[in-house]
């Protein structure tokens, strides 16, 4: 069914009680042309682009829990493309361009809101790093501009630019095309569009093993709902990628950390943009429901517990109270942790593994949401053709052997 003003009007006459299910819940078939492990945003986007652009419709997405229930439902939804290195710029800009037309392409409102992402500088080093990014982005045709503290204040009136704080604001880099989107709608929109094209989305189906044939190539997966034969497996399992790939004997350069986020009580619209401060760890925007959506840093240690230390969230709130004094009496409603898979160079791994037929899209660390459409698009190309798209060709697993790292860790110093 197609969403339109007319369909909305028609359903409103029957009290919105007759909307059909947005995606099918099929039983797994015995065999597929490809199986994608993980029905988060990246996995569902991969399935959608495989079906829509590469005509692979006999494919399945298998998911241990429910779709969009991992990091897709746990992040702070910041979207931007102002990365330092050319490889990253190409990847994230590809994604940002897809975001701009995504609601139309999927016929599903993902509520992409390019309200501007402002990254604060608090030290001389921050200023130099931000300006280096701005120049690099300009050369790549990506918008990013420098704001003085007064200009930053004009763009985001709640910001405190006085000198009476521990880390005063010395300026900011602003990407006006950046913004936020509704995270659940992204998963639901891709799931609905993929399902309509014939992709089977199988929830509550955990992969417990990867089958290999005599040559070592992938021949299928074992799941809690029975074995599935397939010659191509794409693992898009975020924090659990190491666990899934260990089933095929592949050791990954990944460590899984908890990354915390929290939301406040809902209030009236008061915060016009996204503000990030990498130096003092504050990531803040206001959702359309009115809650402040706040990102904290990662915990120090590796963990799969989907929780973290309270001192990490407290540290972020300290910074927010200094930067935005008007939020000092705001109450927080919920906090939670997602498990993020971090690579040594803080750039993702999208491509082949040493096992024939086994592909991986992982290592998005703390900043994968913004890349959802682009990541799915290039990984679909990789899975369908067996060769990487030019945009994800540099993001190999092999780069850790050759030394051709894409070092966004040194470029950004902390979480994206």
């Amino acid at each position, binding site marked *: 069914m197609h969403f339109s003003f007319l369909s909305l009007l028609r359903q409103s006459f029957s009290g919105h009680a007759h909307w059909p299910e947005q995606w099918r819940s099929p039983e797994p078939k015995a065999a597929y042309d490809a199986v994608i492990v993980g029905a988060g945003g990246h996995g569902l986007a991969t399935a959608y682009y495989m079906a829509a652009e590469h005509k692979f419709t006999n494919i399945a997405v298998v998911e241990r829990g429910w779709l969009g229930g991992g990091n897709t439902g746990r992040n702070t939804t910041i979207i931007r493309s102002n990365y330092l290195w050319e490889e990253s710029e190409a990847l994230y800009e590809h994604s940002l361009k897809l975001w701009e037309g995504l609601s139309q392409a999927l016929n599903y409102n993902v509520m992409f809101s390019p309200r501007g992402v402002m990254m604060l500088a608090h030290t001389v080093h921050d200023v130099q790093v931000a300006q280096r990014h701005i120049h690099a982005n300009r050369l790549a045709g990506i918008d990013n501009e420098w704001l003085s503290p007064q200009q930053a204040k004009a763009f985001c009136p709640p910001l405190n630019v006085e000198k009476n704080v521990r880390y005063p604001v010395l300026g900011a880099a602003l990407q006006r095309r950046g913004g936020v989107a509704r995270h659940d709608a992204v998963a639901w929109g891709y799931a609905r569009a993929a399902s309509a094209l014939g992709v089977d989305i199988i929830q509550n189906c955990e992969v417990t093993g990867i089958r290999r044939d005599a040559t070592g190539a992938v021949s299928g997966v074992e799941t809690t709902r029975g074995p599935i034969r397939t010659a191509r497996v794409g693992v898009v399992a975020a924090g659990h990628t190491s666990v899934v790939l260990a089933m095929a004997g592949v050791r990954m350069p*990944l*460590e899984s950390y908890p990354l915390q986020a929290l939301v406040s009580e809902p209030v009236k619209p008061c915060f016009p943009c996204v503000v990030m401060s990498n130096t003092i760890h504050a990531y803040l925007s206001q959702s359309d429901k009115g809650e402040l959506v706040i990102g904290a840093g990662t915990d*120090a*240690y*590796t963990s799969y*517990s989907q929780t973290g230390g309270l001192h990490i969230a407290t540290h972020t709130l300290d910074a927010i109270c200094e930067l935005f004094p008007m939020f000092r009496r705001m109450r927080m409603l919920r906090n939670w942790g997602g498990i993020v898979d971090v690579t040594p160079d803080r750039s993702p791994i999208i491509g082949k593994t040493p096992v024939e037929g086994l592909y991986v899209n992982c290592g998005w660390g703390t900043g994968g949401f913004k890349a959802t459409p682009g990541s799915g698009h290039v990984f679909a190309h990789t899975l369908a053709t067996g060769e990487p798209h030019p945009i994800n060709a540099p993001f190999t697993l092999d780069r850790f052997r050759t030394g051709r790292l894409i070092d966004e860790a040194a470029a950004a110093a902390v979480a994206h």
Partner: protein
Amino acid sequence: MLLIPCPYCGPRPEIEFRYGGQAHVARAADPSALSDAEWAQFLYLRDNPRGRHAERWRHTNGCGRFFNCIRDTLTDKIAATYRIGETPPDLAAGAEARR
């Protein structure tokens, strides 16, 4: 926040410590003989288990010493800490003895 039993100072809150990554990663005896793949293994590949994990911590805001720790990454419960150079305790056997 974790309560970490430093083997020198006793239990202290996590903010006194720095995490040091996977424990028992041995530096090669003859580094120049390593292949690129072996270097990648040493520099970048780490165990990332969902379960029991041997890791290093340093009591930076305390005694300043490194030590090893066995923690379950699913529950964050610490099973044991021990000094650098000591062999990891046999936790399965220890559990039997306590029963």
